[in-house]
């Protein structure tokens, strides 16, 4: 396979397979990742081909999963851990922020922690509580972690390759409602840097910054705006820690207007940091304050309300209108 059109879930699956093939130290572990192949089938077929020793069904204990992954990393392994859903990462939060994030620094660089934590995240699939959250800011705030999210199958493949090769812990947020979206994946391409943002649609009137599931919404919004004669630039952030502020700044210096869109609650979400920093960097360029479109300060609502809760095309365009009205 070199170029193939794959759904995001399959692209990540292929990437994991490649990693397991190439590096005998790579392990896949988590609840139901083995025989079942994961509740989203992202690890489908891997245990069959690589055995129970490398694709490991773990006890139902997230702290244990991450804690033992740390120990395995200390022994020289490169574990790729799955947290079944966003809302179930919190039992492992202590091991992630207190141990995984800090151990390299604690050891003055003498040991490395190449652990990838995969988290299917975000809403839009009509699920019950705890299955639709976007907790990325809670990880990006913590030094020692890197936090990324692919928005399409190609990035799904390549960013996973890069995350596994990284010697730092990477929290890998997978936009679960895009798992079934297909895109071309070129497994022989030269990938863009893991932590670089990308202008995925050029434009001149305002910049939309998004990542993961919201990139598609922003692209649709830009297409709709184009019909009204407005030219929106869309930046796929791809990495929430570190954030590629240079690319965002470059775009804003051109468009002079910025709207950040994410599913996570606006209050103290990644949009807050982007707004604060871009305002500092582009103070004299901005024609309007950076606006943010995101979740509300409320628990993720029951499924029948998620359409109202989640940022959609109309809410994005409403923010664009407000920005342009300055």
């Amino acid at each position, binding site marked *: 396979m070199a170029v193939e059109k794959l759904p995001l879930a399959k692209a990540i699956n292929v990437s994991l397979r490649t990693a397991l093939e190439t590096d005998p130290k790579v392990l896949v572990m988590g609840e139901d990742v083995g025989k079942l192949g994961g509740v989203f089938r992202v690890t489908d077929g891997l245990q069959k081909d690589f055995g129970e020793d490398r694709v490991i069904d773990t006890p139902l204990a997230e702290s244990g999963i991450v804690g033992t992954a740390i120990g395995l990393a200390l022994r020289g392994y490169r574990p790729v851990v799955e947290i079944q859903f966003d809302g179930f990462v919190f039992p492992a939060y202590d091991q992630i922020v207190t141990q995984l994030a800090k151990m390299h620094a604690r050891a003055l660089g003498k040991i490395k922690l190449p652990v990838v934590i995969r988290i299917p995240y975000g809403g839009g699939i009509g699920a019950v509580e705890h299955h639709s959250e976007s907790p990325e800011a809670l990880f990006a705030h913590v030094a020692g972690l890197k936090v990324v999210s692919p928005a399409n199958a190609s990035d799904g493949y390549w960013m996973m390759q890069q995350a596994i090769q990284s010697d730092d812990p990477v929290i890998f947020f997978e936009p679960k409602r895009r798992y079934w979206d297909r895109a071309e994946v070129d497994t022989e391409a030269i990938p863009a840097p893991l932590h670089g943002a990308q202008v995925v649609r050029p434009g001149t009137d305002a910049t939309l910054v998004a990542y993961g599931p919201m990139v598609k919404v922003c692209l649709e919004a830009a297409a709709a705006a184009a019909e009204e004669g407005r030219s929106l630039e869309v930046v796929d952030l791809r990495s929430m820690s570190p954030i590629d502020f240079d690319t965002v700044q470059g775009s804003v210096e051109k468009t002079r207007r910025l709207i950040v869109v994410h599913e996570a609650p606006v209050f103290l979400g990644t949009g807050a940091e982007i707004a604060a920093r871009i305002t500092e960097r582009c103070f004299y360029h901005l024609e309007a304050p950076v606006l943010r479109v995101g979740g509300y300060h409320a628990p993720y*609502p*029951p499924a029948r309300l998620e359409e*109202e809760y*989640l940022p959609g095309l109309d809410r994005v365009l409403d923010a664009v209108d407000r920005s342009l009205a300055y």
Partner: protein
Amino acid sequence: MTVESTAERKPRRTGGNQRASAKKAAPAAKKAAPAKKAAGTKKAAAGKTAPAAQPETDLVQLLTPEGKRVERPEYEQYVEDITPEELRGLYRDMLLTRRFDAEATSLQRQGELGLWASLLGQEAAQIGSGRATREDDYVFPTYREHGVAWCRGVDPTNLLGMFRGVNNGGWDPNSNNFHLYTIVIGSQALHATGYAMGVAKDGADSAVVAYFGDGASSQGDVAEAFTFSAVYNAPVVFFCQNNQWAISEPTEKQTRVPLYQRAQGYGFPGVRVDGNDVLACLAVTRWALERARRGEGPTLVEAFTYRMGAHTTSDDPTRYRHDDERQSWEAKDPIARLRAYLESEKYADEAFFAELEEESETLGKRVREVVRSMPDPDHLAIFENVYADGHALVDEERAQFAAYQASFADTGAEGEGK
């Protein structure tokens, strides 16, 4: 009898008398099965990974799969004065619970529910333990305790709201002393322990039951609940339904010795009961609840049962387990078993079963109707009850949201495009 009055029935009606003043001596722990079974760990100690599934002789069983009564004096006493009417009540509870569950599964297929977690096969574990509770006891369920909810008098249609996606928990926990369903595995074991600590502080003789699964036994929170309950001697019963599976993982992925043995190391008794035997579940839970009431602290009950269906309607068990396993458990069906006993003892006649069939139809119909007419929540519900005392940011966002939605009303559009 209407379904409504069933739901409102007091727990003790079918479950037998309160036993606040334990008239019989509890089985002394020295005689009780769990303490004897300590030897079970030896195998592992010698290095072999003992199978999680032990021979059935480990089980407390009062009714065989064929519907014959078994002698188990130390637990027998907890059900020895059970009347035929009470037995029919247990049968009715299990049958209607199963019917409700089947109805929910098909409502999910019809798109009326987003998801359903079926209890098929676990009716005896849930009805037996649920009917052992007293009205003033408090229950902390997982997401699968539809039968326990039934015993507690929760209107079953209330259970469907979260699976339909109109709320995250649709009943007042304090109306029936039945807490909301908890999805995050194991968390509720600590809530139950804390609640039980509060009961003890109040000097009450109520008890608390925490339900959880075999998978949950691995969570740190459950272990911490064992520690806290033991240290504070809290009146809580940990009722673990070992249905052999945690989604696709068999119990051997959680433990290498039988789960009931976990309790020993924390200093309280554990016992394994046949989870498909409603009488045994009733008896063992009563025993454990009375220990709690007498101030003897926590107990772990492992109900050995089987998840006959998929984990949830989203799951496809053919990917990870063989059908013959399920078939072997079919022979142990909790409802058939009690029916065989009722029939052989002539405790129930054709009329009873026919009437029940009708009642079951009525229940099914009602459930369908109620679900289909469940309204979607008001959009502003997003902002309701985030705080009890209010919060400036929520107020601000609610106002913005309302204004935004109103802006569409003006133009005739209907909210967010997608």
